[in-house]
């Protein structure tokens, strides 16, 4: 069975083609193409601009994907698309493309929950069977565990997502959005050494990031570290490769702030994940979502899992960052169970909770 997955819930539009061999052997990725809309440094992506970007690219990407996978339209069994959660306008652009393809080619449509897509792709790539899932991205922060055909949310953010917190701090510091702000923060944080005091907000298994962002922004303003001027200075300095004096009384650098922000928010994430693991008695953790590419987060999670006698599963940017194949993977699992989405139900929604999906394809 061959399926096309179409993803466009945020600033990435991705088309993926997956093959599920009839003999039940390992599913194969035939194509995974993606194009990202990047706003200039200091700005975020707006829904209408992002939607325009997706509309402009989706047809070309589908063509590219079909060519790369070396399949024709006749080989395709179903068209899977992201139904939510995400930004309204970008979701709609891709959903319209999916409906059009379905009508044009006479293929079944499968609406997919974005979060479930991440989870299924992570399980496929890492081989983790029943892990506690930490889903961290620009729009979502959830700790999820599977129980009787639902992915249940044990803990989540009470306000903004962790990726949103990092992205917006990158904006404050005018760190480039290319390839993605979190990556650039991670690189800058590697030069940071001093831990600045930031709020630490964990409530049970939930956490909150907006206060941390405000505090970090406040520190950046106090020490005059925000804005494009400082970003230019920093770039010049790193080009010259001068060693900063490690005076403890000196004001923190931009790198120190990034370092402190990462250490604080990742500690919170690892803590709530550990709580969920203790609660459900699982020893495996799977990290998915864009922030899941962060190597420091993976390292911290690894130490925690090791101390509990377990292990951590993570993937790289091809599968962590939003992509089409994860939508294809989750959609095809549903399609096999006969769960298709009739045309009249193909509306997309900004709010679509992970635990609303009936996970019929798992029976453990």
């Amino acid at each position, binding site marked *: 069975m061959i399926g096309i997955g179409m993803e466009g819930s945020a600033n990435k539009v991705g088309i993926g083609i997956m093959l599920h061999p009839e003999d039940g052997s390992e599913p194969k990725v035939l194509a995974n193409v993606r194009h990202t809309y990047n706003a200039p440094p200091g700005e975020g992506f707006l829904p209408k601009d992002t939607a325009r970007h997706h509309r402009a690219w989706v047809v070309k990407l589908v063509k590219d994907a079909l060519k790369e996978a070396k399949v024709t339209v006749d080989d395709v069994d179903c068209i899977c698309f992201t139904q939510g959660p995400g930004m309204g306008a970008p979701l709609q652009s891709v959903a319209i493309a999916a409906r059009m393809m379905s009508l044009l080619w006479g293929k079944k449509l499968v609406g997919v929950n974005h979060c479930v897509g991440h989870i299924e792709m992570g399980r496929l790539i890492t081989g983790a069977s029943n892990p506690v899932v930490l889903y961290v991205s620009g729009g979502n922060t959830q700790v999820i565990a599977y129980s009787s055909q639902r992915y249940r949310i044990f803990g*989540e953010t*009470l306000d903004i997502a962790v990726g949103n917190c990092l992205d917006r701090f990158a904006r404050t510091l005018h760190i480039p959005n290319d390839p993605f702000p979190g990556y650039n923060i991670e690189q800058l944080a590697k030069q940071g050494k001093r*831990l600045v*005091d930031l709020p*630490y907000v964990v*409530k*049970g298994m939930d956490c909150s990031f907006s206060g941390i962002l405000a505090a970090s922004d406040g520190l950046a303003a106090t020490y005059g570290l925000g804005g494009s001027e400082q970003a230019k200075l920093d770039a010049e300095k790193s080009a010259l490769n001068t060693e900063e004096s490690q005076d403890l009384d000196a004001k923190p650098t931009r790198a120190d702030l990034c370092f402190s922000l990462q*250490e*604080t928010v990742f*500690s919170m994430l*690892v*803590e709530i994940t*550990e*709580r969920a*693991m*203790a*609660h459900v008695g699982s*020893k495996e953790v799977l990290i998915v979502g864009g922030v899941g590419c962060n190597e420091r987060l993976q*390292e*911290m*999670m690894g*130490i*925690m899992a090791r*101390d*509990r*006698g*377990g*292990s951590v599963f993570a993937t790289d940017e091809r599968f962590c960052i939003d992509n089409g194949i994860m939508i294809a993977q989750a959609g095809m699992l549903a399609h096999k169970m006969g769960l298709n989405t009739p045309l009249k139900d193909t509306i997309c*929604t900004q*709010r*679509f*909770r992970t635990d*609303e999906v009936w996970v019929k394809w798992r029976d453990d």
Partner: protein
Amino acid sequence: MTDEYKPPPLPSPFTNTSPAPVLLTQGAEAHLYKTVSLDPSIPAALKIRPSKPYRHPILDRRLTRQRIVQEARCLVKLVREGVSVPAVLSLDWEGQGGEDGGWGGAWLLMEWIDGPVVRVVLEQWEAWLKKNSSSLDQAQLEQEEERVRGLLRRMGHALGGLHKAGVVHGDLTTSNLMLRLPATSSDPGPTGVSMEGEVVLIDFGLASQSAQDEDRAVDLYVLERAIGSTHPRSEPLFESLLQGYRESYKGATSTLKRLADVRLRGRKRSMLG
């Protein structure tokens, strides 16, 4: 790949106590041991918050210290206010652990409470009810429910006392409520499940000092959900707990009003349609 789990080494001076502390439970944050205090005949509960190597050492010390001190402060305050909680015997937020004697986390030594947790009591009672429900007549059933109502009301009283003292628990479940065994036990009735004893609140690891209706209402809401998911048969009797709560202090009415709001709202709710 998965080695046998080894708890982190005990901090000094518990490496030398005899008999050695016995590990009771391991949560995400802390390990609970049974040990002795001063004299081998005086049992005590030892809560250890081991250091978390995944965290930056400065952050780790800050959080561990903050939390253990906060927990102890809440307990001391509650003991002073006459709320039944375990008394604090001693603590160290800069515990020395391991062979190298470095930073090993913090520990808190508390009074030992002898008795079952409410979760076990309710589970036993529900199991008994399930087994015998067919052979019970209406009067017996009502009598049994009345006993549970009485227990829930006493739990409500205990919570009211807690909130009246200006502390919220932060993690109320039936596992965090105990029944202190009475000196002379009365007849437990046909079920064999005793519900006698003073209700004692334990595990203040997430507690904080607050007198806001919002925090108090969330406390009650958390307990209501916990009872709903672990003791489905006792859930319809939750009203008795609220009744006990209402009787226990003056501000309870406004807290209960807030509880109605808390039940309705939230990110937890589906926003579809």
